[in-house]
């Protein structure tokens, strides 16, 4: 392996290691189990969303609606529990159903009604940002809120639901690993295995690299694409569930920042191990990279706009790694 090849392959991982070492020296408390877990927690949301969008990138698509699916799921969870007075199980099911349904609709619009993916999911994004506000006439949802008709909502957030965002498992230290980190790891391993090692996943890559060839080879291309959007929608709704459980209320929000961070993580993932293609492992590393960077910079009292700048710079560097250094021939 030449120097150039190994730089492409391991450059990003080396950069990540370098960052960790730098922050450990420059700040107090960066290298503690708590800080490590916290970095994972802070990226769990964007990580899960990014893994979902990776599935759509794999089939050569794109999903701009994930941020608003996540915030809609958050509102739905809050609505189901606070207004409809249901328990955590119903709330989780409702969220997942919404994610799957929105993904299915996205897929149908893109594959059967032939609307380009960016435009279809952009439309869905606006639709959801509006839709999530309709049931409560634009109010955020919290226990004891006043409804549009003047009555008071009687429901509460189910403690079992809040535990999804707040419970901590004992690992090395007591109460160390938050449930959201466990969800992130489980989801990451699942999608990684699914994309890399199952026939279904391999065919999704085939659809993404050359849909026509895949079709001639007998693969039901539309079905694979629709499944990719369903995966993306469901993952985004899982992110929304965790968000609702952490905040303990339904917050009206567009979720655009979630979308941007998730897409950034997935794109940075292209550069990891010189893959030059969407891949679950790279996405997870990309999310972690952004998390380490933001945690470290915040600990050094760097203001938020500088952090956005740094995030953007990392993304540009990653894309240069992918498209220029490694060329389009890799793999």
């Amino acid at each position: 392996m030449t120097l150039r090849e190994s730089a492409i392959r391991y450059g990003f991982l080396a950069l990540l290691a370098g960052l960790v070492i730098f922050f450990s020296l420059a700040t107090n408390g960066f290298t503690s189990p708590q800080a490590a877990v916290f970095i994972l927690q802070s990226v769990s949301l964007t990580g899960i969303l990014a893994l979902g969008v990776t599935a759509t990138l794999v089939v050569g698509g794109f999903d701009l609606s994930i941020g608003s699916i996540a915030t809609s799921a958050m509102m739905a969870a809050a609505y189901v529990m606070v207004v409809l007075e249901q328990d955590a199980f119903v709330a989780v099911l409702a969220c997942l159903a919404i994610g799957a349904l929105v993904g299915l609709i996205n897929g149908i619009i893109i594959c059967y009604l032939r609307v380009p993916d960016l435009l279809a999911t952009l439309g869905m994004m606006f639709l959801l940002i509006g839709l999530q506000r309709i049931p409560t006439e634009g109010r955020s949802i919290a226990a004891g809120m006043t409804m549009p008709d003047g009555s008071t909502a009687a429901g509460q957030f189910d403690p079992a639901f809040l535990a999804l965002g707040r419970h901590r498992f004992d690992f090395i230290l007591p109460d160390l690993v938050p449930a959201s980190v466990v969800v992130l790891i489980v989801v990451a391993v699942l999608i990684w295995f699914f994309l890399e090692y199952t026939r279904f996943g391999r065919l999704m890559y085939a659809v993404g690299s050359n849909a026509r060839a895949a079709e001639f080879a007998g693969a039901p291309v539309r079905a694979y694409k629709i499944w990719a959007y369903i995966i993306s929608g469901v993952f985004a709704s899982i992110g929304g569930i965790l968000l609702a459980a952490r905040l303990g209320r339904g917050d009206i929000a567009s979720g655009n920042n979630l979308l941007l961070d998730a897409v950034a993580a997935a794109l940075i993932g292209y550069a990891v191990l010189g893959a030059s293609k969407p891949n679950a492992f790279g996405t997870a590393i990309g999310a972690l990279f952004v998390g380490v960077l933001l945690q470290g910079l915040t600990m050094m009292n760097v203001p938020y706009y500088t952090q956005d700048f740094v995030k953007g710079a990392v993304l540009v560097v990653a894309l240069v790694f992918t498209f220029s250094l490694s060329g389009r021939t890799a793999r």
Partner: protein
Amino acid sequence: MINRRTFSRLGLALAAGSALLGMPALAEDKPAPFDKPGDVKIALVRYLSTGDFFQAYLAGVESQAKALGVQLQVFDSRQDAALQADMVDQAIALGVQGIIIQHGLTESMKEAAQRAVDAGIKVVAFDVNVENDKIPQVEQSDRDLARLALEQAIKDNGESWKAGYVYVAGIAPLDRRNETWVEFKKKYPGINEAAMFGTLDNPIANSVANQARSVVTANPDITVMFAPYDEFAKGVKIAVDEAGLSSSVKIYSADISTADISAMREAGSAWAATAATNPAVVGQVSVRALAMLLAGEDPGKQVIVPPTLITQKDLNDNDIKNMEELSAKLPQFAHADVAMPAWMPNPNAK
């Protein structure tokens, strides 16, 4: 009509008896044009509208307009500055007598507001400076908000502590709150600002929580967090809870909502106090200031709605669970005696 008026007077009399609202509420008939309020049309031209604050503000505008009996038309530009200016022209074309400009940018609204004034329309502006002598400014006093919260922090924690401060520059109300913070730091040299952070990435509470986690990890000896915007405070509270520091950190903030109330009242909550102006009251005051102009009275150049300090103890002692109960149980929060000439109907008196 006679029946309704009799009833409302009865209600006012009862309210006056119980809440000491004062006698002027029973005064003579309203001045023109409010003797025939059904013919009066006013418009609310909004720049910002999504979020609990703006919902409550609108509710306040609606309730005062209803109490006066005037027609209200709401224009919502949804953060489109050019559209907001066009909407003022639309309102002029519709023949409204009065306009409330709610937020917006000085640059885009200055000329539109002047056109309205030139057309003989009375205008008031809320939280936007349109640089016009004929247009009164309705404001919630951000400096007072910050001052009330910080005075409580001094009262609770003494004059020297290590602080974390949440701030995003360039947002007018936050900048005004920041001025007070800077003054306080000068006045009390014992206050040591160990970290300043903040972001408006939405969901704001979630993004601020991530930042605050880093800050408390780097500075575990912070005892006071000054987060002068409730979304900031929510984020800080999540971070402090997650870091297991709820008992060693106290959070002081500004603004309040139903969700904030439940967060402040959680067992062992670090959120000690918040200073807030009731957005519904601000909405009512906006309409009242406009009504005074229409009746030929002068509400003053600046109409300032005073804030109220709300502590965790207040909420627990009165068992307050949402904004309605807060208004009901803390009367100073429910009504501001601002722009209240004798003839003005009080929308809160039922």
